[in-house]
């Protein structure tokens, strides 16, 4: 889990960045409701600041190399999760969606108590499963727009080339939102939690402080 997580972080960053180099060449997506255009993604200063313009070919070259790493790494993660049994902690169960809501209320300080949880709370189960589905979604929509003739069945299934490209874009916006919340939660969860994602164990102190601390190894 740790390995794929930390491989994914830089790879996804490169994918998003090179995706923006590509998107710049035809940046026509906007949120328009009832004829009113609420906003266009990415203002000009944003592009300039990040040196995005006029790099379509470079963006494609990076995107079509790192896509392999993204897909393979994701595949390894899913296989690992299945074969290690970790999926038991991660997949939402029938209570998770209701409980996830309670967790959200608790985290927003609108509710005093949080529902009991295992290794991951209900909101985490929902979020971490959703992000994997999103990852699979990115690979599938990506394939559909990368080779729409070869994968014409997939492209049609996703509503055609034009729509598949919008899905692909929307999923990326989803990652960015996930990332923001994820970072806030990591900071709130504190150092011990962050350390465990690096080292694979968490330090649990006994009630009686005189006893030696216990390390809980996740073996993942």
């Amino acid at each position: 889990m740790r390995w794929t997580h930390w491989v994914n972080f830089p790879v996804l960053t490169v994918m998003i960045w090179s995706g923006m180099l590509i998107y710049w060449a035809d940046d026509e997506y906007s949120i328009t409701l009832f004829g009113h255009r609420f906003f266009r993604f990415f203002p000009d200063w944003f592009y300039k600041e990040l040196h995005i313009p006029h790099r379509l070919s470079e963006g494609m070259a990076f995107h079509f190399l790192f896509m392999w790493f993204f897909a393979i790494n994701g595949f390894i993660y899913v296989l690992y999760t299945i074969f290690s049994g970790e999926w038991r902690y991660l997949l939402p169960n029938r209570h998770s969606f209701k409980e996830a809501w309670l967790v959200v209320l608790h985290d927003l300080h609108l509710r005093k108590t949080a529902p009991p949880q295992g290794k991951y709370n209900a909101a985490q189960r929902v979020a971490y499963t959703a992000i994997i589905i999103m990852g699979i979604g990115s690979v599938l929509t990506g394939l559909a727009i990368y080779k729409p003739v070869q994968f014409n069945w997939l492209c049609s299934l996703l509503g055609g080339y034009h729509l598949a490209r919008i899905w692909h874009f929307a999923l990326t916006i989803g990652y960015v939102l996930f990332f923001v919340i994820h970072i806030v939660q990591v900071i709130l969860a504190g150092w011990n939690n962050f350390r465990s994602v690096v080292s694979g164990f968490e330090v649990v102190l006994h009630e009686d402080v005189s006893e030696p601390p216990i390390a809980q190894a996740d073996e993942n």
Partner: protein
Amino acid sequence: MKTEQQKELTDQQIKRRNFISFTAFGVLGGLAVAGWEWLYKSGPENPGITAGAHKPLRRALNKTELFFRRVFSDNHFVKTYPKSMAAEQVRQNGDLGIEAPLSNNWRLSVEQASGQKLFITFDELKSLPKTEIVYDFKCIEGWDQIQHWGGVKFTDFINHYKLQDQIRKQYVGFETPDGGYYVGIDMPSAVHPQTILAYEVNDKPLPMENGYPLRLIIPVKYGIKSLKRIGSITFSNNRPRDYWAEHGYDYYSGL
């Protein structure tokens, strides 16, 4: 399934394990950054048939092309639509190779296996069986538009002019009369049944900006390969020169 284990550890052991983990994390992170720096700052490829891309990335593009050409089938068809869905205003994008006025005695020059050239008139081409296609034209920039084109199917053209020997070669090259724009296409894509030499759009002759009198329409490629105002067609076993491949784009650019 492995269960969570709890171990009693001394402070020192915890410190030690943390130290090892974080050192490894730092070293691997440093390596990743160094690898990225190397890739990002890697020099451009030596200019040739392809140019303008980072050297390692060009290698990756070419390898990826080989991989996909090996696993993919040449018999997949591009999705077609009813005529009513075709755009009335066909999008025009770029005028490389067609800025100069068209000469009055335009002929299509085609290289035969003997090395001699055929010069074909517009009327001759129009007397061949017509093929029409309505499909979603995809630009490498990202936009797409459903368009209706009509012309001579490339394989019909080959058969009519007895160029069967020529299509045993690996590539076809198309160039504008002034040589200002040029594309190279792998033979399996060129002889795909949906590739046409188009002289009509929406049942009317091509407007100048869309490549009058004759242009290539190759739905299995991005629009950059659908060259306007064809001047000459050549065949070879090596990659013919290709305008956008010289500017950092993938040579294959297949869909």
